């Protein structure tokens, strides 16, 4: 039944249903109860074809684990992932098949590229692994790709370690796009780079998307960048999605206290603007055996007594805009009445 539904819904590329990923913790004693680190818990989102879907949250909130699960790198404990309407983890083969259409751009290009590879070797590696291309075709495509990302054919013979961070990230993008994947995970592609280079790389990503119609899952903790790039987004906190929906609506009307805090943490350069920064107290709570209710309650400035036990479900506050906070959504309902 569900499968049929999905087949009809052609514009959804990737869908997760109640996805949870857990990692077992190392035991200190043999008889100790096994502790589980819940990295992603109960996440249901849809990524549409050709869009840029933003995933925002602090480090350790499970956004990279979620991305890895959609790439078939982290086996979910429960829940399902559908890629192009096909369940991703049904068989071993289905993961491998789906991966032909997936790529990833990593955070730090200096460590994701082999310094002993020339640019040609790095860019052509995906084609070599896939196989079935003749030599001239590989060379032609490599040249085409490397000029598309703003380097020149001459650079193909230089080593990847000879380039600056921004240029290395361009090489990484060329390498990810060379096989025309349908789905690319951009895992904080600019946070290891200088602010002055951010714009170049983000513009390049947008330009390449226009050309190839690829779908991006864009992971970031910088909301200002996400605002321009993404059509829809999900904000994650400690493995759970706290706000989800249309990007424009979330930015126009942030509802969850955590989203508000994140938005206020974006720094500006305008000297006359007053900062009303919401500084959250404390660090991210440990994801080992998290509370059953709201996971943000220990840092929340709007928390009420029973927040730790109250169940948080994504509720629709307006069309295409979902928030998981009973306090805020409940309050809203009262006002409307």
């Amino acid at each position, binding site marked *: 039944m569900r499968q049929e539904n999905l087949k009809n819904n052609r514009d959804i590329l990737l869908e997760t249903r109640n996805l949870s990923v857990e990692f077992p913790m190392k035991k200190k004693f043999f008889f100790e109860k096994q502790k589980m680190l819940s990295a992603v818990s109960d996440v249901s989102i849809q990524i549409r074809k050709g869009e840029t879907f933003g995933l925002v949250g*602090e*480090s350790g909130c499970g956004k990279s684990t979620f991305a890895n699960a959609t790439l078939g790198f982290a086996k979910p404990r429960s829940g399902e992932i559908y890629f192009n309407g096909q369940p991703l983890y049904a068989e071993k083969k289905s993961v491998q098949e789906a991966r032909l259409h997936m790529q990833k751009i990593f955070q730090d290009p200096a460590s994701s590229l082999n310094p002993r590879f020339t640019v040609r070797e790095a860019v052509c590696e995906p084609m070599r692994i896939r196989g079935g291309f003749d030599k001239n075709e590989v060379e032609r495509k490599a040249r085409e790709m490397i000029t598309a990302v703003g380097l020149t054919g001459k650079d193909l013979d230089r080593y990847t370690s000879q380039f*600056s*961070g*921004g*240029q290395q990230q361009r090489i990484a993008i060329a390498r990810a796009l060379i096989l025309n994947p349908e789905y690319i995970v951009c895992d904080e592609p600019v946070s290891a780079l*200088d*602010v*002055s*280079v*951010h*714009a*170049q790389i*983000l*513009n390049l990503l*947008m330009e390449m998307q226009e050309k190839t119609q690829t779908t991006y899952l864009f992971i970031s*903790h*910088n*909301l*200002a*960048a996400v*605002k*321009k790039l993404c059509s829809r987004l999900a904000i994650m906190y400690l493995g759970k999605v706290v706000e989800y929906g249309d990007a424009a609506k979330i*930015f126009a009307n942030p509802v969850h206290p955590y989203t508000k*805090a*994140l*938005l206020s*943490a*974006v*720094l*500006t*350069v*305008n*000297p*006359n603007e007053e*900062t009303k*920064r919401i*500084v*959250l107290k*404390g*660090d*991210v709570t440990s994801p080992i055996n998290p509370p059953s209710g709201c996971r943000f309650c220990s840092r929340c400035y709007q928390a009420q007594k029973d927040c730790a036990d109250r169940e948080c479900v994504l509720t629709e506050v307006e069309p295409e805009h979902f928030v998981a906070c009973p306090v805020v959504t409940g309050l809203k309902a009262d006002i409307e009445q």
Partner: protein
Amino acid sequence: MQNAIEVKNLKVVFPDRGRMIRAVEGVDLTVKKGECLALVGESGCGKSMTSLSCMKLQPSLAAVRLDQLCICGEDVTDYTDRQMQALRGSKISMIFQDALTALNPVMTIGKQMDEIYRCHEKISKKEAKMRSIKALKAVGIPDAELRYHAFPHELSGGMRQRVLIAMAFACEPEVIIADEPTTALDVTIQAQILELLSKMQKEKQTALLLITHDLSVVRSMADRIAVMYSGKIVEEAPAKELLENPLHPYTKGLMAAVARLDDDKKEFVQIPGHLPDPADKPAGCYFHPRCPYAATACKKAMPLLTQNEQGRKVRCYEAGKFKE
């Protein structure tokens, strides 16, 4: 008024694969007492090398030449390493970017903190422990007594940065150099750490040399800003004036490059091109290949850092002439 750091004509050169890299080319810097000076620039522009040279901590291969270096009024130009060692920690100290590599991974943070007190002051172990715990509490670490026995890897990134700040402020130095203190952190933690740093600085009246590549970090903290490009300072001004009216095209570009929430343009504003190869810098103004306002004069000779009528220092022929 006495200056906390005064550097005159600092030059740093080091060899790299058979080429000479001119990392810093004649930088003059003064940090007044109790003031926060921000040194802003892209990676590879020589800002970290400048800060390390101020503490005489430059890598052994690098050759440093300078006319004068004063720390808290003391002329340390010809100090030996041992003489400098007495100053580091007590008069001048440093906060590094990556707390995990700056802290010793096989020593508890308490032990590392005690070391500072025991080195610079003749106090007992017990007293050192007491003061360490007090310092940890001052930077807002909960359960400081328990954390005292923790190893660096047991703390989160924000906590480790707090420990580094506590260590830098331990002996109440007069100057602190903070080299990208928040770059490795998340946005919400970054807000916490910046708030803590400016609170501590105001309380203790410490001079701060803040090094960063992000102008938005600087806005709320710095009294003065110096912008560095390819080994030279291109603009220096009080923070508010510089951000309200940047005179150098590079400063302008850096400001535009910060992604903003209230910006409705479809694309990100970018500075074209990239930093020149430090072993092969262009003739004339180093910025001219990337500069939208470059004139013929810019390609011939490097402009000087001149002061205009309003007392603003800028290194550009066309400074202030161009408009939006």
